Structures are given as structure tokens and as C-alpha cells.
């Protein structure tokens, strides 16, 4: 067993681009689900919109990178509005079904052969991240703490931008949730009729939460696309959304640090177990499974973890059990 490799991979995943992507996706869900009680099951769609906005703007149309960023943020807001208008007045599970359907629509559109000239079909798009990496201030080389942590200069640039985005999003959320605005959201999560009877436009607040969460989700999409220098439609399936929920619930919903710590821990554990098992299989320590089955085991553990968390510790690591909305209806 190569413990250095295993721990190194796990730690790198815990602070790497996956952790950033899922932290941002979960921060978005935290606004919607954690604080407001809205079930957005289509966060993957918002990530896809962010990722493809950059990719299509730059790779397909040859327009500037920052225009792509702007389009991504705008489209995410538009999608949230489109989804919210019909469903926010209805029961919670309608929003869940509509958002999950919308995310699938986004994925099916970008992977379609008919539109492959624009979106690249199932292969997706590449060659759009040049101007992003041109801004990279890190000179080539290895950075980190050998032998555990080591990133090349491109990764360092992605990580810097990504964690700064996480920090900004969390700070804004922190300020917003301390304000009377945040108070209205938390009240809506608990009983929207009571809030309505006090003269607050509940629909508008829910919409704001949906838009803000979706826009933060699109930022996760930016990092997803840039860190891989590629977009591929099937990476934005509903499983992504559910992993983000796992991350959020693991860290603790309705807590500012919940999504961040949840995401770091999620990836640390997932890679630790995955790499550990792979290593054990390769070195012959474990003989009854194959390397490819390790992936399935990882998936099973995510599902199992989500179930056990909700049953035994729905407040996650940081949450306050008195404050979570899971039992609300």
C-alpha cells in the first residue's frame, strides 16, 4: 500500500478543483434549500449553463472570455426566473420535478447531434480557456508541500480563482443572512403563510433565492469548465446535483461554512476510499474486487452516506438541529 500516494491524492482532492466546484454548487443550494427551503434539483443545469456559456462564447463564436462569463451569469438568472415563475407558487415537490427536468433539458440540448456545431455534441468543446490561463500569474513549476501536496501552475491559478470565488460568495451570503433580508428567507423556510400575513412578498423572496443560488451555481460551472479546459455534457447529469446535496447536508445546511467544509471533506473521503481501495486491489491486499468496481463502491458509499446522514445527523457537521428545514412541508 502506497500511503503517501493515497493521502496525497485525498488531500489534493480536498483542496482541489472538485472541492471548489462542489462547494460553489452547494453554496447555491444552501441559499435555496438551506435558508429558504426551496428544492432545486436542477443545480447541474445551472453549472452546465455556466460552463457552456464560456465554452460556446469562446470556442464556437470566438468572442472574448469575459463576455462568456457575463453571458453565463445572465443565463443562469434567466433560467432561474423561467423555472420559478410557474412553480414557486406551487407545492415544494413541483419545483423539484420541474428543476430536475429543466437540468435534463439543458444537458440533452447541449449533447444533441443537431446542435453539435454549437455545443460539440457528446464530445463537448475544448480550446476556450486560453485567455484564462494567459492571465495566470504563477510561473511554470510545481507548487505545494512535497510529498503530500503538489499542483502545477495552471492548477494553482484555477485554485486561486476558485477559492477566491468561494470566499466572496460565502462572505456575501454571510452579510445577507445577517440582514433583515436573510431573516425573511429563514421565516419563509418555516412558514410562508405567516410571512405573507406580515406583508412580505414571499414569491419575490423565493425568486431572489432561486436566482442567487443559480448564479452561484453557474460560477461553479465556470470553474468546472476552466479546470478541465473542456466541457462535456454528461458531466452535468442529475447525479452532480445530488452529490452537491450530499455535500451540503454533510457540512450542515443553513450554515455559511457548511458547504465549504462539506465539500472538502466529501472529496477527501471519497478519494481516500477510492484511491485506497484501488491501491489495495493493485497491490493484492484486496483480491475479491476489481479496480473498476472501486468506482461503483465509491458511488454506493455516497448514496449510503446521504441516507445515513439524513436519518442520524440531518444537521450535518455544523448545523443546528433546531434550525433545519427538512421536516417542513
Amino acid at each position, binding site marked *: 500500500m502506497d500511503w503517501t500516494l493515497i493521502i496525497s491524492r485525498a488531500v489534493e482532492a480536498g483542496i482541489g478543483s472538485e472541492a471548489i466546484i462542489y462547494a460553489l454548487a452547494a453554496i447555491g443550494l444552501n441559499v435555496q434549500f438551506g435558508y429558504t427551503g426551496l428544492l432545486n434539483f436542477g443545480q447541474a443545469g445551472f453549472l452546465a449553463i455556466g460552463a457552456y456559456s464560456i465554452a460556446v462564447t469562446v470556442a464556437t463564436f470566438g468572442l472574448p472570455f469575459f463576455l462568456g462569463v457575463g453571458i453565463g451569469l445572465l443565463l443562469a438568472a434567466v433560467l432561474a426566473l423561467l423555472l420559478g415563475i410557474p412553480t414557486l407558487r406551487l407545492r415544494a415537490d413541483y419545483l423539484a420535478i420541474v428543476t430536475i*427536468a429543466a437540468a435534463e433539458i439543458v444537458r440533452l440540448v447541449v449533447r444533441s*447531434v443537431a446542435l453539435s456545431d454549437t455545443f460539440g455534441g457528446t*464530445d463537448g468543446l475544448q480550446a476556450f480557456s486560453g485567455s484564462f490561463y494567459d492571465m495566470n500569474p504563477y510561473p511554470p513549476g510545481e507548487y505545494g508541500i512535497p510529498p503530500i501536496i503538489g499542483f502545477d501552475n495552471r492548477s494553482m491559478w484555477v485554485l486561486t480563482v476558485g477559492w477566491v470565488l468561494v470566499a466572496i460568495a460565502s462572505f456575501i451570503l454571510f452579510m445577507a443572512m445577517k440582514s433583515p433580508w436573510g431573516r425573511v428567507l429563514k421565516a419563509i423556510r418555516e412558514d410562508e403563510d405567516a410571512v405573507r400575513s406580515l406583508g412580505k412578498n414571499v414569491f419575490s423572496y423565493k425568486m431572489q433565492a432561486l436566482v442567487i443560488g443559480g448564479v452561484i451555481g453557474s460560477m461553479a460551472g465556470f470553474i468546472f469548465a476552466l479546470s478541465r479546459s473542456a466541457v462535456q455534457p454528461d458531466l452535468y447529469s442529475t447525479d452532480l446535483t445530488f452529490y452537491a446535496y*450530499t455535500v451540503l447536508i454533510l457540512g450542515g445546511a443553513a450554515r455559511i461554512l457548511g458547504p465549504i467544509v462539506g465539500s472538502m471533506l466529501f472529496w477527501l473521503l471519497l478519494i481516500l476510499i477510492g484511491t485506497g481501495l484501488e491501491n489495495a486491489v493493485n497491490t493484492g491486499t484486496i483480491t475479491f*474486487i476489481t*479496480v473498476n468496481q472501486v468506482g461503483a463502491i465509491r*458511488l454506493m458509499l455516497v*448514496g449510503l452516506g*446521504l441516507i445515513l446522514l439524513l*436519518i442520524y445527523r440531518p444537521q450535518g457537521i455544523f448545523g443546528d438541529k433546531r434550525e433545519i428545514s427538512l421536516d417542513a412541508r
Partner: protein
Amino acid sequence: MRRAVIAFTAFMGGLILVFLAGASTAWAEGEEVRGTLRLQGQPVQGVKITVTSDADAPVGDATTGADGTWSVPIEKAGSYKVTLDQATLPAGKALRDPNRGTLTVQVFEGNARNVLFGLVDANAPPKGQDGGGGGSSYWDRVAQLVFEGLNLGLIIALGAVGLSLIFGTTGLTNFAHGELLTIGAFLAFFFNTVLGLHLLVAAPIALVIAAAFGWGQDRFFWGQLRRRKTGLISMMIISIGLALFLRALLLFLFGGGGESYDQYVAQAGIQIGPISATPKSLIAMGIEIAVLIAVGLALTYTRLGKATRAVADNPALASSSGINVDRVIRIVWAAGTCIAALAGILLGTTQNLNFQMGQQILLLMFAGVTLGGLGTAYGALVGSLVVGMFVQVSTLWIPPEMKTIGALVVLIIVLMVRPQGILGRRERIG
């Protein structure tokens, strides 16, 4: 916390047992490009496929086997060119787009990348591709699509009835319902292919086990959660966790490739008027219709069916009028799972079995249930048929790959215009 640890340990113990049981299933290892060459569901054998690196350095080649599969192992992630040698295609078969004989694909780390080559029957005239060049052929196509839509709609309906009844009686929006179809299909596969029983024997055994699984699921899992007063949203997310778990378990046990039953794989089509169909699909539809009618009759006329509707209407009232609500719910779970498993098996006779097959039609089931009005079994039935029909018939106007999009868009529009569904009552949405 201690209980959580104990439960987790127990579950892990169970997992290890499962691992041992599943250890025999072999998997391809490492990065590779692979695929299965098929035409109209039939494998195409003996076709040579070459893989080169981006810089045209040869990497390897393969020839499709009797089951149409091929794979070329590669050393590292990267961009590769995959070329199908069109000269080796059997007579009468051709690439759908002769210009796409070479495809460039990205292979990611640890990823087995599937590459698809679309084939057509070179002898058959392209069907309806000329945009309805004659009135009769257009209507033939409509008839064929309506038939296929009915076929799909019936499968969706089988799944949706259970989904809707479970929602009605427990309030749970079960995101793991798609996996119940998959489990049914793979149970039958296990008895059929692994143990060698004829599918007609394997399927009933699978259905019994599925019913027991459904019963047990409520007895030992959902029922316990209800007793703990777990919230509905909580349960919904738990069902997502369960779906992820079950799907991964099937992936673990049966691998990620497509499988098929030993019987009823290839059947010659027969022509009935304008419709061409395989006998197996006609029989499958017959079974589906019979089951759905039986469910409908049972709900309307039997004591249990009436009790089920009473519970769906108002559990507290049903309970106070002497109905054993828990028992009804358990039977609903058993029956719902059994019917879903049947849908999975029947789906498995017409397409490949894979661990995602149920998940792939889950959204269509939701569409059917929502369209018909959440929680009403009859509504789910009608809604599903409409969805199935719509998905297939819409391919008259939109590319087939986009047909699901159409159904999902309609789902969203229906929620906008008539959130109570086609048959639901307005008061229900409260």
C-alpha cells in the same frame, strides 16, 4: 450517534458479503475505447476498428465479436482517433453517415470511453427521411409512431402507477422508483442468464422477489422512517440516496455494459397493416394492458383497492374508520415494486439492460404522474400513455434524440397551465 455507527457497521458488513457474491463478475480494466456495433438491435460481427493517437501513431485495433462488442485498451488519457474500416462491414450494412467513419474522442483518466458508430441497412430505402414524400408513407409513419408511443407509454404507466400510489398513500416522492424497474430487469437477468432458467420461468421468480423486496423496503426502511416522523422532504432526499446506492450496487454486480436476456433477443418483425412490430413486443403490450386493467379493477372493486384509495385520500380518516393503514401501505409497496419490476423486465426484452435503464425513464414517469395529477392512480395511467405517445410521435417533427426534451418541456408547461394535472382536482395542490 452510537446507533448511527452500529447501523453503518452492519451495513458495511452486508456490503462485504455482497462484494464476495459479486466478485465473479469480470470487468474490463484501465482506460480503453470500446463500443458495441449494432444495427436494429442485432450485433454486427467482424468489423475492424482502428485506434490511433491524435498524432496518427497507431495504438491498437479490434474486430467486433459475435455480440458486436469491441474494445481497444489504451495507455493513458488523451485524445484519440477511432476509425471504422468500412470495407469490413458485412454486405448490406453501411455507416449512416459515411463521412463519420473516423471519430475523435477524448478519453479521461480511468474512463472506458464508449464510441458509437451509427449503421443503416444499405438495402432498405431510407425510411421517411425525405419528409413524407407521399401521403400514405407519412400516415404509415404516424401509425408506427403511435404504436411505439403506446408501447413506451404502457411501460411508463406500469412504473408510474406504483409511483403514484406510493405518493398517494405515504406522501413520498420516490426518486428510487426507477431503480425498482432496473432491479426487476436484473433479477430476471440473473435467473435467466446466470442460472440458465428460461425467461418465462425467470421472470415470475424475479417478480416474486421484487414484491418481497418492495414489502421489505417498507417494512424495514420507509415504515421505520415514518414511525420516526421523518419529514417528507427528508424522505425524498433519502430516496435519492437510496437511488444512488441501488444504482451503484447494480453497477458493481453487473458492470456498466449492456446485457440482454438469453431468450427473445432477436425476433423478425411482422407487418400488421401499416405497423411493423415484433411478436414479443405485441405480447409485452398485451401483458402490460392486462396488468393495468387488473390494477384499475382492483383499485375500484376490491376491498383492498378501496382501502388504498381511502388511505390516499386521507390516512387519518381511513385509520379511524378501521383500515390498517400500515398494512395497506406495505401492500402498495409490494405491488408497486412488483409492477415496476415487470415494466423493467418487459423493457429489457426490447432494449439492452443496463444499470441506468430505470433512471432514464424516471423523469418520464414523473411527467406521466404529474400530467395526470399527483397522487391519483388513474391520472398516472392516462398521463403516462400521453407522455409515451407524445415522446414517440413528436419525432415526426423533431430529431429523435430530442424527443425526451419535448416531453419534459410539456411537463413544465402543464405545471404552468394546469398544476393539478389532467385529472387532478384543483383543491389538491393547496
